[in-house]
């Protein structure tokens, strides 16, 4: 079914009418449509306030004056105007708005735990996971978002379960038995980064680990971004 947009639309707005006109259509057709609509209005059109909206099209002044003429002479309408122009927003302003929106509308989606996750214990969450404490060897933590461990991470960690490859893992002491991010797994020693805060993420289909303070993975973001 083809849903054709009519060349002329009329709707009541506040104390007047809002006339939407498609300027690409032939003038005769427009005039015919306008007459049809305003004849139906009968006496309501007299002394009414009409706003003609050309959809922001430029260079249609002739069309506009013609319609004005037609409405004033034939239907005795009061005032005919064009829609008020929007003030262009400065880039600065729009940035500020975006910034504010970013964390005002974002609901906190993290599970924050304190304490020690011991061997045999398993923490599974669909949210981001923040652990203020240690994850012992033999423990398992699984998050559908990111994982941040403020302590020693020695167990098994799975961030971005099951397939989010944007997820990352940050740990103050990074000595996991196994790391999985999205669908990519790695195990092995991370002795080169002992004693450093480590940031693990996916790059080139591999899990890479970096010294968090040195590489500053989020240092280049222009403003705080909610995740």
């Amino acid at each position, binding site marked *: 079914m083809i849903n054709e947009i009519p060349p002329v639309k009329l709707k009541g707005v506040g104390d007047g009418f809002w006339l939407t006109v498609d300027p690409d259509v032939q003038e005769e057709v427009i005039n015919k449509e306008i007459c049809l609509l305003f004849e139906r209005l009968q006496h309501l059109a007299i002394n009414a306030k009409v706003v003609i909206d050309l959809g922001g099209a430029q260079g249609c002044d002739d069309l506009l004056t013609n319609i004005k003429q037609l409405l004033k002479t034939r239907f005795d309408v009061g005032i005919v105007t064009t829609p008020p122009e929007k003030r262009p927003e400065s880039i600065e302003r729009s940035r500020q708005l975006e910034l504010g929106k970013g964390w005002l509308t974002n609901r906190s989606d993290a599970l924050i735990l304190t304490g*020690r996750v*011991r*061997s*045999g*214990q398993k923490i599974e969450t669909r949210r981001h996971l923040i652990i203020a404490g*240690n994850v*012992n*060897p*033999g423990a398992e933590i699984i998050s559908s978002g990111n994982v941040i461990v403020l302590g*020693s991470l*020695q167990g098994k960690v799975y961030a971005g379960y099951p397939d989010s490859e944007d997820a990352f893992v940050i740990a103050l002491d990074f000595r996991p038995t196994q790391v999985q991010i999205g669908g990519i797994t790695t195990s092995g020693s991370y002795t080169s980064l002992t004693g450093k805060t480590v940031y693990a993420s996916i790059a080139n289909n591999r899990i890479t680990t970096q010294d968090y303070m040195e590489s500053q993975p989020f240092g280049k973001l222009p403003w705080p971004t909610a995740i």
Partner: protein
Amino acid sequence: MEGKIIVVTSGKGGVGKTTATASLGAALALEGNRVAVIDMDIGLRNLDVVLGLENRIVFNIVDVVNKRCNLNQAIIRDRRIENLFLVPASQSDNKDVLTAIGVQRVAKMLKSEFDYILMDSPAGIERGFENSVVAADEAIVICTPDVSSVRDADRVIGLLYSRSITPKLIVNRIVPDMVAKGNMLSHEDVMDVLSIDLLGLVPMDDQVVISTNTGMPLVMHNQSPAGQAFRRIARRINGEVDLPIQVPSARVGMWNKISQKLGLNR
């Protein structure tokens, strides 16, 4: 009189649960307490051998729990140490013959008769472990300074916490020479992972094998460093909480002693 039930457990086998139970039982009895040591390792009993009481067993804990005999019929009194008593395990049954309710009933009877009841838990975290901890007031976790033992101890600590028991730790079989060379986890490394209260550190000691085979309680040997460590642990359990923990040390030189006092080396 309301005694205290202390379960000795570890998760991993062969770390010295039975030796620790026997030694601590004997040491607590030597301190003047009425002590019962219960072997909960049904089917694989050892505590009677370690205490040298194997040829006096008539009834065992399974008989008591299943009401085949009185508690007093199963209790064996040690002839060398006054106030030390043993309730042996059965060698023919398996761990499923005990029920939690039965164990709790017997535990209540034991509590009214003894100051300390030490339960020697079997290795593992299944039925045998559950039966041992069901009536426990306190728990002692034995751990050796190796990675696998630490991991199992960690699991057991988690399970004990989930039963609202706060366990205390004994690190067993420390070889100070190896720790000094960095070939063995130090007790600090173990504590870093397990983070529970430390009750004592026990050094590796050849005397343990000799006493186990002869059935002579370790704590009766004055020359045994492990025996002495267990006696100090027993004093700590018995209320002397301020007794400082002695770190087993291989160094004997004067300079090392001085530097140790000054805290220059671990």
